[in-house]
């Protein structure tokens, strides 16, 4: 592995370890999975293959960040906007075509 790629992989590993600290199933669980995932690919030699895995790692980073955000957003929404969501779902249900159609029948 060339030196820049090696650095890139280590940075990715560090970033994922850092993200894993808040993982809902626990940091230890996440770290085990992370380690085995990296070890599984340790014998890759072809640059394209390695790049593919790095891209996958970046994608996983993004997914985890998105998951944390959605968890937080939902918690906030549940705590502070519960009534409003119920109302909006109610009004949405009332405004849908099938609801109007069925009420006419």
């Amino acid at each position, binding site marked *: 592995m060339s030196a820049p790629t090696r650095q890139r992989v280590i*940075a990715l590993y*560090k*970033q994922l370890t*850092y993200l894993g600290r808040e993982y809902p199933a626990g940091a230890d669980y996440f770290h085990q999975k992370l380690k085995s995932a990296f070890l599984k690919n340790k014998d890759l030699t072809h640059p394209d293959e390695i790049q593919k895995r790095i891209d996958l790692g970046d994608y996983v980073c993004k997914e985890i960040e998105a998951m944390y*955000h959605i968890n*937080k*957003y939902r*918690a*906030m929404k549940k*705590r502070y906007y519960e009534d409003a969501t119920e109302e909006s779902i109610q009004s949405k249900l009332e405004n849908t075509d099938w609801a109007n159609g069925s009420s006419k029948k």
Partner: protein
Amino acid sequence: MSNLRILVACKRVVDYAVKIRVNAAGTAVETANVKHSMNPFDEIGTEQAILIKEALAKSKGTAEIIAVSCGPNKSQETLRTALAMGADRAIHVETDEELQPLAVAKLLRAVVDKEKPDMVILGKQAIDDDSNQTGQMLAGLLNWPQATFASKVELAEKAMTVTREVDGGVETVKTALPAILTTDLRLNVPRYASLPNIMKAKKKPLAKLTVAELGVDIKPRIETLKVAEPPKRQGGKIVESVDDLVDKLKNEAKVL
């Protein structure tokens, strides 16, 4: 558009995912050995400041983002998070005293007088005391216009148009700068500070101020009498038969 200076207030609160416990004396929430993080609404505020900065950079303008936090020494962790997200520098007003919204508003006014920002962004409320007062009080103390519960912000030359979330809809207001902005949940998606940025944030300037230096009276005006947990939900019961159910509804629940 030219140069803007944006002050962002960040509060260190008990993390949203932590199960809150009332302390043994029933006077406050247990905060020792509990995970803390930046108030989610302040994260949204920080993100908004960064978005404004990025938008200005495209039109050859600049913005300086100053994160400010009032509280004990550990508030610096929250400021480092803000710096890692993209704030330029931070101000920590250190005190171990209990701070109520009025005290924080007064401290922020003192910081505003020092730094002369064009805009102050705050979260609409903190998720620990849920006061929803600091932004409004600060606007009152400074005699600045305020746009609270913002769900959309558009910046123009020395003015901004803000869409606010109000009961049963949205309201669009326009205000001149300087002004106070408080953020609502739907304003933006806060970015997650990356590891390299957290490392870089350690080198960003963090100024420390004391309450005495700012000459602010932070004496609490409100006394907390009691803090109690919500009543525990009682377990359900399995009924044997329909008669049993009717009997229980009549005699125990008294709904029939």
